[in-house]
């Protein structure tokens, strides 16, 4: 899928080089060199992919291997038998379904909020001209440099004072308060021709009407990008939920994962089984909607 985004150009580069050097040197020698180069590149690509994939493969192997095999040190690179006992142990010992549900509820709400709030704000910053809009944008940009650890102490007190502590909102609202979506939205909506909007205004449409009738329908790809980026970020978020979630039954999956590791210590089978439950939904979404994630990352640089 990514390929389609990047594909077109380089083909021509290679074919050009073939043409050009055929004048300078015997065709066969060149073809051999080209083939050697290709083999080297394929080898490099396979090596890099192996380094990325091996830890994930190993996670799978450990998650599906029996405890005796893990403890006995008889585990092989290619396991002889696979078992679900790690999953059974984890599911029996921890409220995984609840934690999974918490993760879904929190990240979906964050994603919806992010889309709503930033479409509105992005429209204002990109298409409406008013005093102070550049300053707002600049300040919003600057807030992206603030790590949560800098503001965690007062943020915790604030959330407690607002009566949010002990609910999903303690995580949702501070997570949704991120300027990354504002930029993505602003950059995207800038590409909508201003004439279109002015024409509607001249015809007497209100700014709200312009937003719902013109901006929204043209922003579908943006909505997808914002939604998936926010979903991924919130699903994987760790530092703030670690502080804001103290009650066991409000845990999200990453916090639950850490909690399980604290309880089970070096029971790697259980840890990896749970890690898989945390990781697989996002990997699947990531692969299916790769285009939107890639757009989000390249346009905003958020991770």
């Amino acid at each position, binding site marked *: 899928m990514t390929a389609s985004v990047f594909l077109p150009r380089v083909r021509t580069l290679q074919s050009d080089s073939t043409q050009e050097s055929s004048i300078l040197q015997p065709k066969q020698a060149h073809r051999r060199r080209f083939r050697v180069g290709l083999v080297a590149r394929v080898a490099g690509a396979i090596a890099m992919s192996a380094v990325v994939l091996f830890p994930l493969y190993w996670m799978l192997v450990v998650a599906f291997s029996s405890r005796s095999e893990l403890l006995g040190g008889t585990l092989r690179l290619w396991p002889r038998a696979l078992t679900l006992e790690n999953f059974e142990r984890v599911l029996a010992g921890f409220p995984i379904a609840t934690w999974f549900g918490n993760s879904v509820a929190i990240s979906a709400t964050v994603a919806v909020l992010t889309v709503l709030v930033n479409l509105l704000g992005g429209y204002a910053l990109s298409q409406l001209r008013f005093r102070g809009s550049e300053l*707002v944008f600049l300040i919003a940009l600057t807030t992206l440099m603030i790590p949560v650890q800098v503001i*965690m102490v007062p943020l915790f007190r604030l959330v407690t004072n607002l009566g949010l502590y002990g609910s999903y909102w303690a995580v949702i609202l501070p997570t949704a308060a991120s300027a990354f979506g504002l930029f993505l939205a602003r950059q995207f909506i800038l590409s909508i021709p201003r004439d279109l909007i002015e024409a509607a205004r001249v015809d007497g449409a209100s700014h709200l009407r312009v937003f719902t009738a013109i901006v929204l329908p043209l922003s579908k790809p943006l909505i997808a990008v914002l939604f998936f980026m926010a979903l991924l970020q919130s699903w994987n978020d760790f530092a703030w939920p670690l502080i804001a979630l103290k009650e066991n039954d409000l845990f999200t999956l990453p916090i639950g994962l850490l909690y399980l590791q604290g309880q089970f210590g070096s029971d790697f089978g259980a840890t990896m089984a749970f890690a898989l439950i945390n990781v697989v939904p996002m990997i699947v979404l990531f692969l299916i909607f790769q285009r939107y994630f890639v757009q989000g990352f390249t346009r905003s640089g958020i991770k």
Partner: protein
Amino acid sequence: MTTGMAVRSAESDLLRDPVRGGSQHRKGRRERVREGVAGWLFLTPNLVLLGLFVIVPLVWAVFISFQETDGFGAGLFVGTANYQRLVSDPLFWRSAVNTLLFTAIVTPLSMAIGLGAAVLFNSVLPARGVFRSILILPMAISGVATALIGVLVFDENNGILDNILRFVGLPAVNWQSGGFAAFASIVLVTLWWRVGFNMLIYLAGLQGIGPQLYEAAKLDGAGIWGRFRNVTVPLLGPSSFFLLILNVIYSFQVFDIVYVMTGGGPQNATSVLVTYAYDTGFVTRDQGYAAAIGVVLLLVTFVFTAVQWRTNRNRDLVE
């Protein structure tokens, strides 16, 4: 997290403004007022969220950094005592040095490997799209899961990496008990996690380099390396600048991996400023001091980004 790209295009918008402003002169005063009101209204939800959950806590954090408080009851004002304490706190300096070291290692490495991968996966290659997808896959994985996979792979008692090292006749490495090895394991896991992102940005940058430039360089007698050095690298300047700022900001904030993999140990060998601030604020509950650590970290981040920004601009002006 911040983006140079967005800022850069913000700049170009500013340049475009006079043209746009032209239409504004034709507009009536009432229309302009109405547009302003609409603008602020549309921005309100965002301003409320950012104001309440970022700006207010930020100002509050500065305030708390002048207090001594455990988070229960009112704090005691102690002036600049927290900041004075920082100067003579060895653990603070250790964490600061570790943070800088981590940044100085991870930033160039992830950019260099990312660039290599981008050039490789931009060349003619079978199943190129599949390879690209594999490289960016770690971006979908949570920091906690990534760190736990790191714990699994780097375990010094029975981890797969040490087993492989022993199998091929190399000495096993004490990834947990050795300070240097623990630091290295964090760097390696971070690279695994982050290289895909760097590759993605460079791939996007490579799309902007026209093939005729390579042809011209080739006619001038440049080899593969010459073309890489004199065409690819300079023309990827904007991508590199963007990545430099992002990687530095990210590295200053590295938390998930360190917290889960080593917890800052052994003997603080991997303690960084954010983990130290977290421990101080929510484990030992010395919250005034934690706020002071955070404020210093933020100042360093601001200064660094501003310096990068300024020097880059100057370079553009010179050229």
